[in-house]
């Protein structure tokens, strides 16, 4: 985004897994960048490759059946080719990750404090145990855990879901990472707690200037906290832009479908949601050309050729989409009633 080199630069990332049924192309040529202090959201439905993208950056998808290609540079480090030893140094210190399920990402048999201290001491040689404990208390206070010096001695099961997610954030913060990857951090939480956690993430970004990758399926959360959005579908990026571009000038039909599918609390209850019909394709057997073609009511002959992810709006090099439709036509087709949605042309006429 900015003139300065981005914090993270991912180029043409491809991840595929060999399975019994064949090769699953989970991530199929994904490129993006994250600047310091920026929140980039990766949005998509299950199976879109959003989580695999995030986990690959952390080196968590490596395995004998996985093939990972492309480049991902964090500062001077090439993440994809880094050795396991190098990764151990990077994980936690430079990149930290928060997972969806805070219960299964904490060890149930160790006290909260010990788990935070372990991470601090792993990355900072020579720090005494008591100094690390003090740091842990500070961190827990910073993420809004009350009575933190007492709660240090609690086990994960004694914490509520929201509190456990705060512990995860405290651990992620312990080494002041440059990049924080949050994979569905609030999906398992109640809305009032979600609002609190999003507020924590916002404060964190302001205080530390860390870049944040937010992986989510929830466009409302995106609208609340992100600066830029990447929409993924079936392993590919189909649209990328700032949140204002994506919400007010969405260019890809899949994005229209997503926006139309959302029930909005502030909107009059319209009779029907302009939903997307059908199901996402299997990653074992993706359609020829545009992956969204089988579900797209606006598809035409050219869609069997692969569209490129390029800028199509004049004077805006940052708003990218992967669709063959002409810009003017897109802007006309996406309007369904008084909102944006995906409906076949025939239905619009009738």
């Amino acid at each position, binding site marked *: 985004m900015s003139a300065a080199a981005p914090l993270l630069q991912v180029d043409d990332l491809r991840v595929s897994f060999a399975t019994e049924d064949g090769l699953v192309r989970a991530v199929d040529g994904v490129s993006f960048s994250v600047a310091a202090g920026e929140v980039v959201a990766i949005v998509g439905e299950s199976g879109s490759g959003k989580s695999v993208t995030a986990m690959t950056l952390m080196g968590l998808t490596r395995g004998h059946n996985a093939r990972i290609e492309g480049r991902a540079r964090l500062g001077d480090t090439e993440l994809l080719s880094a050795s396991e030893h190098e990764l151990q140094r990077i994980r936690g210190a430079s990149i930290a990750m928060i997972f969806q399920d805070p219960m299964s990402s904490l060890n149930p048999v160790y006290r909260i404090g010990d788990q935070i201290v372990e991470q601090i001491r792993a990355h900072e040689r020579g720090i005494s145990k008591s100094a690390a404990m003090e740091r842990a208390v500070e961190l827990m206070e910073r993420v809004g855990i009350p009575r933190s010096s007492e709660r240090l001695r609690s086990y994960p099961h004694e914490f509520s879901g*929201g509190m456990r997610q705060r512990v995860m954030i405290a651990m992620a913060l312990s080494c002041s990472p440059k990049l924080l990857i949050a994979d569905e951090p609030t999906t398992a939480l109640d809305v009032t707690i979600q609002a609190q956690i999003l507020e924590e993430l916002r404060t964190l970004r302001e205080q530390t200037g860390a870049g944040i990758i937010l992986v989510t399926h929830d466009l*409302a959360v995106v*609208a*609340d906290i992100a600066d830029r959005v990447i929409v993924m579908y079936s392993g590919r990026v189909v649209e990328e832009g700032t949140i204002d571009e994506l919400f007010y000038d969405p260019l890809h039909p899949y994005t229209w479908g997503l926006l139309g*599918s959302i*029930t909005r609390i502030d909107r009059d209850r319209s009779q029907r949601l302009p939903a997307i019909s059908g199901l996402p394709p299997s990653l074992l057997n993706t359609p020829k050309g545009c992956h969204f073609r089988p579900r797209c009511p606006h598809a035409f002959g050219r869609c069997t050729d692969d569209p490129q992810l390029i800028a199509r709006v004049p004077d805006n090099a940052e708003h990218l989409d992967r669709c063959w439709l002409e810009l003017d036509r897109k802007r006309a087709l996406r309007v369904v009633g008084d909102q944006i949605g995906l409906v076949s042309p025939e239905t619009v006429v009738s």
Partner: protein
Amino acid sequence: MSGEARSPDPSQPASDGGATAERQLAAAVVAGEGPAANGAALMEVEHLRVLFPLKQGIVIDRTVGHVHAVDDVSFRLQEGETLGIVGESGCGKTTLIRTLVRLIDPTAGTIRFRGNDITKASRKRLEPIRREMQMIFQDPQASLNPRKRVNQIIRTPLLLRGVAKDRTDAEARALLTKVGLQTEHLNRFPHEFSGGQRQRIGIARALAIDPKLILLDEPVSALDVSIQAQVINLLEDLQDEFHLSYIFVAHDLSVVRHVSDRIAVMYLGKLMEVSPAEELYDKPIHPYTSALLGAIPIADPAENRSRERPLVEGEPPSPIEPPPGCRFHTRCSRASDICRQVEPQLTEYAGGHLAACHHPQNVSSEEIAGAARSEFSPLSAGAEAPSAI
């Protein structure tokens, strides 16, 4: 439809000791003309309480306390209406609807279905009533038998309804088409379907018995957004076609608002507010409702930046020892002494909008003066009328 299934023969004495009330009940339900059939209440719930005992002890279990899952909840559901129930986890919304179909026995209170008291009805008496009420569950994977084909899953309720054996196949096909699946899916097993498709099978199974009321427990929260929208549209179409009433439980207020006519907001086992769906967003009367609304991000960046969003501190208190007075007072910015001591009554404002709050918001002093205690107020509530701060 279910009339064909089991027309009770009035000449035949009921097997369990000539309980005339039971027979009348069964007859009324089956014939579809209970005392309150015509546009009147389909279901009436009065002062319903469900307490789960907490046991402790090694040899002898002693009850050391109770989880107040549902604590004196009253409401009425009109025929053809969709009542949404929202609340955070642990507020008792799932316990409430499970109690309504008597999957859980209530501790106190009454449940009437078409005017007939089913609070303590026996299994046998419940049988015809349960045909009128069906449930759809959150996890479509766990609620379908993995060893049965779709065909079998849908045929069983059809047979129970009394559809002739040679007709079931055609009926099953028709139902499957109705919920947007193809007839060739009949011979498949549940694991061969995606989450959204499985939820459609669950819906077809519920419809097979031709119910009047469907209770939906988080029916779309396990689904992706685009699939969520498909299922919501389907539920709305089916409601029109089969004149169904819904009780729709979900934690997602925006989904609930989209489908419901009225919305009940629950907190720690109590009703906080019952609002017409249109008014809920613009005119939340209870501070908890505005807290919930404020916490929900809207998929519109400008709207998010511009609107006021009060952030509630802390987490809900334990339902084992809920706070005295108003249950929300520990997290409420408007709480005063009275809120800590006296449980607020449910007050009915203009337009049938109910709220249990001593210091209501978004209502003028005239509106407060014109409001009255609702008949749905909890028994333990005080008589104090609400007042502006």
